């Protein structure tokens, strides 16, 4: 392969698609630790962009300062959806299939509800154009480097919290056996709320990075949702580390194929097909083991 293409796609893939990794981490936390496919996670991403844009344009905060309130507000929304919808649903013993459709309904509800608050037209961040820094001969906007850095920091922190800290031990215990965890003195509500909050922060930050890179629109998160889902389902079998690695590979592959085909949509199409084949092959293997 052409060396230039390789370095270009590495730099572009890592920086431009860093928010994808961030969003996938948040989604994977919910998926792995609560077993929930939350379609409305796409609106956590969208709302992160809206909250960032709103604090930026209303209070004149610069983009870096905006990230903190945007992340916190998205985290709070995420927790609110847990209390308003997912906790009652769990108490009512809603099945897996119904849970996915409920989260789809919530996603539609939030996507259209936010338009009554933030208005119908597409909105934009009011920020000066980012400084361009040359990395391996490719010009990269400073916002994208911040995105990459926060992905690195956040994934390390989450990884450390879950794998090493006592809180992480509680989270993992809760995920593997709720009754046993409760019997050993873990407060499930606190830990669950924490998971939803961290997932929301990750999604919201991803949304803010997506939004500052282009525009802030109701479909922002939904456009990314399929890719987030693909990354988590394909990489999730190997834990959070697998999600991060798959996310990075996906970003680089998207960048490389976009450069090669000259058309982002073809890159997305190839990626969707590739991932589907992968899922099919894996499910076949699982089906085979079921026959033994």
């Amino acid at each position, binding site marked *: 392969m052409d060396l230039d293409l390789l370095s270009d796609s590495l730099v572009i893939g890592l920086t431009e698609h860093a928010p994808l990794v961030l969003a996938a981490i948040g989604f994977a936390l919910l998926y792995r630790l609560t077993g929930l*496919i939350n*379609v409305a996670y796409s609106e956590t991403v969208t709302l992160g962009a809206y909250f960032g844009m709103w604090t930026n344009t209303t209070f004149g905060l610069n983009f870096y300062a905006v990230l903190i309130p945007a992340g916190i507000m998205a985290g709070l929304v995420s927790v609110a959806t847990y209390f308003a*919808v997912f906790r*009652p*649903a769990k108490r*009512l013993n*809603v099945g*897996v*299939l*119904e849970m*996915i*459709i*409920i989260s*789809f*309904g*919530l*996603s*539609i*509800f*939030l*996507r*259209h*509800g936010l*338009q*009554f608050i933030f208005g*119908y037209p597409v909105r934009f961040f009011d920020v000066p154009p980012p400084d361009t820094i040359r990395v391996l001969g490719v010009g990269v906007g400073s916002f994208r480097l911040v995105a990459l850095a926060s992905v690195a920091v956040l994934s390390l922190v989450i990884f450390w919290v879950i794998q090493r800290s006592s809180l992480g031990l509680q989270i993992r215990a809760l995920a593997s056996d709720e009754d046993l965890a409760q019997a050993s003195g873990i407060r499930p509500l606190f830990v669950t709320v924490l998971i939803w909050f961290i997932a929301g922060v990750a999604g919201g930050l991803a949304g803010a990075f997506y939004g500052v890179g282009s525009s802030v629109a109701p479909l922002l998160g*939904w456009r990314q*949702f*399929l890719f987030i*889902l*693909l990354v988590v*389902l394909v990489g999730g079998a190997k834990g959070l580390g697998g999600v991060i690695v798959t996310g990075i590979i996906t970003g680089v592959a998207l960048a490389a194929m976009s450069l090669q085909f000259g*058309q982002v*949509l*073809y890159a*997305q*199409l190839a990626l*969707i*097909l590739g*991932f*589907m084949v992968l*899922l*099919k092959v894996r*499910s*076949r293997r*699982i*089906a085979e083991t079921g026959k033994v």
Partner: protein
Amino acid sequence: MNLDWLDAFLISGLFHVVVVVGLGLLLHLQLGLARIANFGVVGFWGVGMYTFGVLFVKVDWPFGDVWAFLISLVAATIVAGLAGLLVGWLIADLDEDGVLVGTLGFATAVFILATTEQDLTGGALGLGGLKFPYNVGSVKANEFLWLIIVTLVVFAIFLYAWRVHRSPYGRLLIAVGANEPLARSLGKPAFRTKLWLFGVGSAGMGLLGALFGVMERFLATSNLGIDVTLAAMVALIFGGTARVWGAVLGGVLTIGFFDIVVQSYLPLPREWYSQAIPVLRELIFGLAIMIVLLFRPLGILGDMRRDKLMRSVHSD
């Protein structure tokens, strides 16, 4: 024919209801009986719509419009059915998460292809040149006749769903949906059943997409949004996922309420109709899905008839 009594908005409102009821009936077989959540309804619908449009408009047929129309329509149905077989094969051994990815991914792939293959589909600019295979006078008369024809097609779909409910195939779908490993262990061909289910269901969705495109006369990628899937889903879930009449009742109460009653008969300020009402419509649909599934999971009509019957027999 004098159609002065008939409002043009009423025709389009009724047409929306009828088409969504058709989609809801097909989704009912998948979601209500086999318990497979097809999030890619709009993908199959789009395959049918664009296959028909491209064949009818771009191909230089050696015979008259009516035959070209019918051949394109049949081809669109077959292509959508084949797409259904492909997606069915893909998701047949996957769990709920895999089905979500597979069907959603398919719908996205259709959207991408409709956008990128501009030479064929017109891409974002759209594809014009579709027309009714007849001309009975005014635009309104033509549209009214088309509404009647599509209603007959949807009625045929209704009869098919009705028959499935009362056939061994329907019981097989219910068995696979309720407990697939058990159905398999009893020697039931779960894989082939799902394949057939998706093949036929998608062919029907593709046919409805093509019929819808004819009424629009203009194909644009904006017809391929998630709102189509949402409309079919909310109609079915609201009315009752487990009953044949569910999609009919739900379609009338949800789509009918917004696209006929709110559209034409409520005294609302005119400026609301451009943005507020369409957004509110989707918002309420999302809310309806949540509330129904949380508090009355089987919708207005509730349990399957045979379940009610079983209970009444066994409670004696």
